């Protein structure tokens, strides 16, 4: 294993390995301190960034941060690496790669062609020497477009997952949040429920209910119930109508094992989803959630910094041609991302690295009450990710998830981003909103219908006749 040193002025900094160098080059965050892998001070951090900038990208194909023999994620990364695609940048150092990414040579087309030639470690490395504006500028050049019943990721579009969670999975309570969201133009990425109870019977009930709502109101969206992949497979075997197959994933084999999954099981889930053939426009159907710190919290990080572990999860994701991937950035708590500044940077890193690797990234822009963060921080991250061209964000009633007890972006927040940045929902959903009479949008102008759409007026009348 190579060691690295870097001299700045009179001081020479030494780094034990590529893994050590990567960790110490990471912008400061509490999870890396918790793991004991962070730089000791700011000087050492920048020296590590300087040393990292001098390393040839090709080095990452020689030295695995987590051994090939002991980790199936590393094997996936190496075995699926495309040397022809890599050729465009194979002569560059990490620093030279940053310069190239920011140059006009890197455009939508060349970046799409490059993606299969990049490993997660290369993406993570270059992100560590990029400022926030670099992460945004490069990400917004890239589009990762996916399709199921709607089209995600087109330029000028911002989609939302309508997240109608309820503490007891009560059907009417969930339906109330769904209608609220639809009437604010949310839900084009999916209507996705985190179930409170994980029994197969209640999961199937929720899936049947979402399918019935989507069919009755002819909504061009996808359903998802966020349960373990084995439960989704079981639901599919029982003939339940399921659109998107969900799973939480992480960047090491051991962390995935702590979630009760491996690559074979994901493949099984993917194939089960494909067998239903429910996509009308395309068959991207996996929905993955990730987040910095998950490998460390499972004690499965092997001394690798949390941002690099996270980026390795995107290699897992892209292998299954996902519909969407969601980094749940502030959910894990302040021991991994302490405050608004760390959460904002992490969200932008994740989005950038995912897009660079060809993954359809979204972000759960969120925080918990014991993190040093608030709504203003979320507004900042939302605005920045909107500019960066993020595929989707969450939409929940009033930012308050009453089941998971954390705060994420509201239906109103999504409209703010669409309005200020001139972004629209997915084209199929945009048409539906207009046809059913919820609103029409022209650039940044959103014109609501004067009355409730007749279909929903009727549903509310049923409620009145209780």
């Amino acid at each position: 294993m190579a060691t690295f040193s870097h001299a700045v002025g009179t001081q020479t900094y030494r780094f034990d390995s590529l893994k050590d160098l990567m960790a110490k080059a990471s912008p400061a965050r509490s999870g890396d301190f918790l793991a004991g892998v962070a730089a000791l001070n700011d000087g050492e951090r920048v020296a590590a960034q300087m040393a990292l900038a001098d390393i040839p990208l090709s080095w990452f194909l020689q030295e695995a941060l987590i051994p090939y023999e002991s980790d199936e994620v590393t094997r996936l990364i190496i075995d699926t690496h495309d040397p022809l695609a890599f050729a465009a940048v194979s002569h560059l150092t990490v620093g030279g790669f940053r310069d190239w990414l920011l140059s006009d040579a890197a455009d939508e087309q060349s970046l799409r062609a490059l993606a299969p030639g990049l490993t997660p470690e290369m993406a993570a490395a270059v992100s560590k020497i990029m400022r926030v504006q670099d992460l945004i500028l490069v990400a917004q050049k890239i589009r990762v477009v996916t399709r199921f019943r709607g089209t995600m990721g087109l330029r000028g579009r911002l989609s939302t997952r309508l997240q109608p969670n309820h503490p007891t999975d009560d059907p009417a309570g969930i339906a109330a949040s769904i209608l609220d969201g639809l009437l604010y133009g949310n839900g084009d990425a999916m209507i996705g429920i985190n179930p409170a109870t994980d029994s197969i019977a209640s999961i199937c009930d929720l899936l049947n209910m979402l399918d019935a709502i989507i069919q009755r109101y002819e909504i061009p969206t996808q359903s998802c119930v966020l349960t373990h992949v084995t439960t989704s497979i079981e639901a599919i075997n029982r003939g339940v109508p399921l659109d998107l197959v969900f799973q939480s994933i992480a960047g090491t084999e051991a962390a995935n094992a702590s979630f009760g999954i491996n690559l074979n099981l994901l493949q099984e889930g993917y194939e089960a989803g494909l067998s239903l053939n429910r996509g009308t426009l395309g068959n991207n159907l996996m929905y993955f959630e990730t987040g910095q710190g998950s490998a460390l919290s499972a004690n499965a990080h092997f001394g690798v910094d949390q941002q690099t572990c996270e980026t390795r999860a995107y290699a897992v994701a892209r292998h299954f041609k996902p519909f969407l991937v969601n980094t749940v950035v502030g959910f894990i708590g302040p021991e991994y991302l302490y405050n608004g500044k760390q959460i904002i940077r992490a969200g932008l890193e994740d989005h950038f690295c995912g897009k660079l690797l060809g993954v359809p990234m979204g972000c759960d822009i969120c925080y918990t009450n014991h993190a040093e963060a608030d709504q203003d921080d979320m507004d900042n991250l939302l605005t920045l990710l909107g500019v960066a061209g993020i595929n989707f964000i969450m939409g929940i009633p009033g930012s308050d998830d009453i089941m998971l007890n954390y705060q994420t972006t509201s239906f109103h927040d999504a409209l703010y981003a669409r309005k200020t940045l001139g972004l629209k929902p997915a084209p199929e959903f945009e048409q539906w909103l207009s046809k059913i009479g919820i609103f029409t949008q022209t650039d940044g102008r959103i014109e609501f219908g004067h009355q409730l759409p007749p279909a929903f007026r009727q549903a509310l009348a049923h409620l009145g006749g209780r």
Partner: protein
Amino acid sequence: MATTPTDSLNPWLELRRLTPARIALGRTGTSMPTGAQLDFQFAHAQARDAVHLPFDHAGLSSQLAERGQQTLLLHSAAIDRHSYLQRPDLGRKLDDDSAQQLRDYALAHPGAIDVAIVVADGLSALAVHRHTLPFLARMQEQTATENWSQSPVILVEQGRVAVADEIGELLGAKMVVMLIGERPGLSSPDSLGLYFTYGPKIGLTDAYRNCISNVRLEGLSYAMAAHRLVYLMREACRRQLSGVNLKDEAQVHTIESAAPSENFLLKGE
């Protein structure tokens, strides 16, 4: 007073009774109306204040003394809230002085301890201030017939759940019950959590503990929480274990199963 712009009038207001979610908030333009906006900010402020409220251990100690219960004050290895929030590992163990204090206590007081009760601030000292005394009173009523010997009530500053296992081990206690402030939600700044371990020792994982969550006025009542805890303790003594292998059957019998409501979006044709 917050004003109500005409476009925020909300024709689906009646859906509010179906869910505690913040639905039908109305809108001004496409943004949150002032009233809803400030309601949210207040809820968040309460949760934040609860996280940073210092543990009034002196107050709690004197209230317990009035009821004839002795206390011992200990501190985790997390020196302050800042360190507590970033280093969960430090909150899970005692600082050196506290560990020594417990060893000294155990030497000076030989004899079996059946139950050690530990009270830690956790993420909401507010929860501990509000609920410790009334909960312990209910618990005492329900354990009166057991003749379980007890240590003084152990108060821990900047404590996390697992610190109770170290305390139980140092005291040689058969069972340890921890009362700890839970992570505040937006509408629940004062939720108390109860954790129970049979045969506590350092290094046990969550799989060896039973948890009873959401003890507060709007959540699980003191009586119900005490009932479930004491049920677990009796079962644990009988089977000599706690955690995932000790099913909380008391829960099954006591939680009302409300019939799910009908979904109005799917009614009629």
